[in-house]
């Protein structure tokens, strides 16, 4: 199926989101759609699939101009959008999800369970995926849930699949599985629009790339004719310079030491230390226990044995309050469910972590809050209309900056960052790296947990690798490369 979108305009109120945007999707290709957060990628795809109506422009599918009035109409035409926040019913089974709204009946609304099971199983087999069709959705991993979504799309005979950051929550092996599936779909002539911030994936998977900037079409290139720097330049319209800015930090005394931290099968005999001004990268496959170790240090997950020392003194930390008082800050991996009160303002989010500082005998001093929040918005370049801006309406990068501001103002001596740049565009990423460097320069000890290898390699002084709850190695960043880290992460030895 060939799709051509030309001169698309779309405004929400006074906010012009798309201005002469468009792209051409060829039959049977994997087409990357890239741009910073807010560049209009998702909006453009939502216009294609009839979620939004367009203000101007044309959409031509297989030579005929079309306007889909709803996602259902687009689906009937064979165009399916798989959203980043998966659209699944968690309490129902795989088969029920697959047939939601299009159940096979024996008439009179009585479900033909047998027929549906058979057809669901066939579809799964055809995809080459082994997911029990009577499993409840919430028992499946995110990767499996995504496979079910794809299966659902294929069952309606989708010719075009649009995937919005499909790997954001997948483990390494799930990602590989997804890529294999995408490649086999391409062979079958299915076209795929692939939206992602991860350069490495684009180069591995895609045939062509279209770049949008500020809602406008910038250009389309063949992947093999373009490199990463070109893409970045097209995305932000200028040179960004070094991907990882240089750090000028003096490494000082030991701030945090962990000895023999153990919790059943989750993590075992974890030993490491971080010094003032140092960035310790933590790498490992998803599910290796990295996040759990960090939650344990922060007092948010009880552990069985082990000791934690801060500045040489042993501490017992039972909850987050005690961790904060001990000088630890923790930027968690999921900013939407753990990092922010989404429906609250920037001001309220920053204030909540710093209530002690802002209050006098439990009465909150609004003027003090406002002063610091205004400073934070400036210092962290948060794009917003002011302290009362609701976090829901901020882009991913700006939300993450709010999370940073909130923690930095608790003045931590040790700052744990769990996937701090996930879902953040390249410009905001670099700003976050600069913040990390500034903090290190001020003598904060930083633990950087990340699934993006280039990030860990580019930002760390030392890299600790976790495999199945055990530390398989701590290597100097100078001596590390992608291959060594991956070897350790998959349980090998150097």
């Amino acid at each position: 199926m060939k799709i051509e979108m030309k001169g698309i305009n779309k405004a929400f109120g006074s906010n012009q989101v798309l201005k002469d945007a468009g792209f051409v999707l060829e039959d049977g290709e994997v087409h990357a759609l890239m741009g910073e957060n807010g560049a209009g990628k998702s909006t453009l795809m939502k216009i294609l699939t009839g979620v939004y109506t367009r203000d101007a422009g044309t959409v031509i599918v297989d030579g005929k101009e079309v306007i889909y009035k709803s996602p259902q109409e687009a689906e009937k035409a064979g165009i399916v959008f798989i959203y980043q926040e998966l659209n699944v019913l968690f309490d129902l089974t795989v088969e029920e999800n697959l047939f939601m709204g299009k159940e096979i009946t024996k008439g009179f609304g009585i479900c033909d369970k047998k027929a549906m099971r058979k057809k669901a199983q066939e579809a799964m087999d055809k995809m080459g995926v082994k997911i029990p069709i009577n499993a409840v959705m919430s028992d499946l991993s995110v990767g499996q849930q995504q496979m079910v979504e794809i299966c659902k799309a294929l069952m309606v005979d989708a010719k075009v699949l649009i995937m919005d950051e499909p790997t954001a929550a997948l483990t390494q092996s799930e990602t590989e599985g997804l890529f294999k599936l995408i490649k086999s779909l391409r062979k079958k002539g299915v076209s795929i629009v692939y939206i992602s911030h991860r350069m490495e994936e684009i180069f591995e998977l895609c045939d062509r790339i279209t770049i949008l900037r500020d809602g406008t079409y910038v250009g389309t290139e063949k992947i093999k004719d373009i490199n990463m720097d070109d893409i970045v330049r097209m995305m932000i319209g200028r040179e960004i310079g070094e991907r990882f800015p240089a750090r000028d930090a003096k490494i000082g005394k030991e701030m945090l030491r962990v000895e023999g931290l153990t919790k059943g099968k989750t993590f075992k005999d974890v030993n490491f230390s971080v010094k003032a001004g140092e960035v310790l990268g933590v790498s490992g496959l998803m599910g290796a226990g990295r996040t759990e170790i960090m939650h344990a240090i922060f007092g948010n997950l009880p552990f069985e044995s082990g000791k934690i020392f801060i500045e040489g003194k042993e501490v017992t930390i039972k909850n987050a309050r005690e961790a904060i008082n001990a000088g630890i800050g923790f930027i968690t991996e999921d900013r939407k469910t753990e990092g922010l009160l989404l429906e609250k303002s920037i001001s309220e989010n920053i204030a909540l972590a710093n209530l002690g500082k802002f209050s006098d005998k439990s009465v909150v001093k609004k003027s003090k809050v406002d002063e610091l929040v205004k400073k934070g918005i400036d210092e962290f370049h948060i794009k917003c209309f002011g302290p009362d801006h609701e976090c829901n309406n901020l882009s991913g990068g700006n939300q993450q900056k709010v999370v940073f501001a909130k923690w930095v103002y608790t003045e931590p001596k040790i700052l744990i960052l769990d996937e701090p740049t996930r879902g953040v565009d390249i410009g905001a990423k670099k700003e976050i790296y600069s913040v990390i460097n500034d903090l290190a320069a001020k003598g904060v000890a930083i633990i950087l947990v990340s699934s993006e290898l280039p990030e860990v390699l580019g930002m760390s002084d030392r890299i600790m690798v976790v495999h199945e709850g055990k530390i398989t190695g701590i290597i100097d960043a100078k001596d590390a490369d992608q291959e060594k880290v991956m070897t350790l992460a998959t349980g090998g030895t150097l």
Partner: protein
Amino acid sequence: MANKTAAVAAPTNKKSWTSYIGEYGAFIALVFLVVVISVVSPEFRTAGNFLNLLRQATFNGLIAFGMTCVILSDGIDLSVGSTLALSAVISAKLIMQGVPAILAMIIALISGTLLGVVSVLLVTKGRLQPFIATLITMTAYRGLALILTDGKPISNIAKSIGDRPNQFAFKLVGKGNFCNIPIPAILLIFALIVFYFVLNKTTFGRKVYATGSNSKCAKLVGVNITKTKVIVYAISGFMSALTGLILISRLDSAQPTLGDGYELDAIAAVALGGTSMSGGRGKITGTIAGVLIISVLNNGMNLLEVSTYYQDVIKAVVILVAVLSDRKR
């Protein structure tokens, strides 16, 4: 350099007029109701009736304030009516047995607070849904009140109080006046100020909103979720007990069936006031508007001699319209 990436225009802070209606919807509805009923019923607009109305609003109001805190923290308290009855019965029993009334009333307030704590322990320790936990305590407290009284009302309480100061204190709570304003109404206004202050100006208030908005996130920045919830339900229990004291003082009698169905009026008032039933969003000023709407409706319909059968239906329609107009756009 970072600023240059800000090519996309920052969103503006303009509020549409519809969002103002959303914010003050309950007050607009209240003013509208007052104006309409005032025009139709001359009796309604007398000062005496307004004081009467305010006194009637007290019972629902005090409970609804506590309920607002509970709902803001993403909970619900169905046990308020039963808590009211049980603590009222306890104090009446104690008074009848010769315990000084002031002491008995203090004990009632403490019991109410503790009964609230029991409910919340089922939530935090027992890991029950707030709806189920308070459904259980609601049933249990009502049963206990019936057992304590043998199902019969305890009457003529004031007469049984021997000494003057204690008798005066008991009567004062429900029947007293200060500068011609009924004491219950004064309590209501005082409580409104206290709740407004606590929810808007204190660290505890912030913690209540944060707990209801996203408890995971709040926990990770050091908010003690359990403690916050315990305090919130304790407040609700305390407010129920206080309402119970006003009621038995006014009626001079404590019935085990006291406060039956009060939880629904309180929840209706909170919803009318625009508080989100899933917590995190809402205002105490909205709740007082909701309370007054319900009182004005009841009072107005009685004065206009609307049949009681129709009253409930009309109330339902008003709540529906108010809640719909209050939806986030």
